[in-house]
């Protein structure tokens, strides 16, 4: 997690607007589809869940692993990018 992906930088660099859930770092097409099935179709919905969990990365990672079947790295990447986005724009 020391290095960040291009996707991470793209997401953290600007307001998320109406970006799809797959714009989140660590969420690819398959995980995005699983999340969409549960109603998490936009990135801001996932952000809402992240905020509901009080920006607790650990709990959020647990949730994301349960909800989408993401592995620890993917969930951690998503949590990191949401946290950094919140630091910049919230």
């Amino acid at each position, binding site marked *: 997690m020391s290095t960040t992906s291009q996707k991470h930088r793209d997401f953290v660099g600007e307001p998320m607007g109406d970006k799809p859930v797959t714009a989140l770092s660590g969420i690819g097409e398959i995980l995005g589809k699983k999340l969409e099935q549960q109603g998490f179709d936009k990135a801001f919905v996932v952000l809402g*869940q992240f905020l*509901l*969990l*009080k920006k607790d990365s650990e*709990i959020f990672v*647990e949730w994301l*692993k*349960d909800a989408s079947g993401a*592995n*620890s790295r993917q969930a951690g990447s998503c949590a990191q990018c949401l946290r950094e986005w919140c630091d910049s724009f919230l």
Partner: protein
Amino acid sequence: MPLFEEDPAHLSKSRLKSDLVAHSVALPPAQSKKDVYVELHLKHIDQKNAADFSSDEEDQVRDVADKEEDAEDAEIPDPSGLTDDDLKAALLEHGFKAGPIVASTRAVYEKKLRKLLQPDGQDHLNGAEKGVVYSDSEEEDEEEEEGSQGAKEETVERSDQTQQESSQLSQEPVKDTFKDMFPDTQATPTGIHATRRKPIKGAAGRPIQYVYPDTPASPTTQERRAVERRLVPIQIQILVFLIVVVLLYLIYACVEDNSFSPFVALLESLNQGSDGEEGLLLPAETQDTPALSGQE
């Protein structure tokens, strides 16, 4: 042993609580409703009474096992049965400040509570996740353990073979395993080896296996050693002294030749001056002499 059965549902909450405590059953969270207590009461205390009445030994054993399981269950109240507020309170009891518990977050918080209730990490539910988190070390450890156990089993099997066959061929592998670790020990048919205790300090006539470095020196000797370490050997000292003497002599010789020359020159000039005066006098004399000679 109570002679009459009381319906736990008719007991007061405090009475239920005290009964549960008396039977060393873990109490549910403080905010739990009476139903929870009644349930626990039915589960543990009534079962125990039933066990008391039954004379069948096997049944008792099974009951005890059941009770242990129940005790474990009671230690971990099912978070899914709690209300949102209870769940939040239970999490707070364990030092975790939960956010709003809504439909989408409840499952996560239930899981968190389960995890908090089992800090030992022996939960089979969380075992897989923890395995992922600590996969590296754990897997290695398990592999090592399995390997060592396998090795042990192998040696045991082989030693059995030696007992049965009493042939030297099967004794070889036994040696292989232990020869590496204890090259001095002899292979025994049982595979059990007694290793001699190693001498600690070579006491009682045993050979000294480890010699301690010199006993700690006193400060003065240490100082002396330090000084000695700083000093150069005596031969080099003499050599340097001789070189210095030679240099000084050479300088002295050069100085004698050259730098006294001003004085020598002065003395010579003085001598020359006196010579010059003499030279001046001489012509006067020569001048005088002709006059004298002319007078003559």
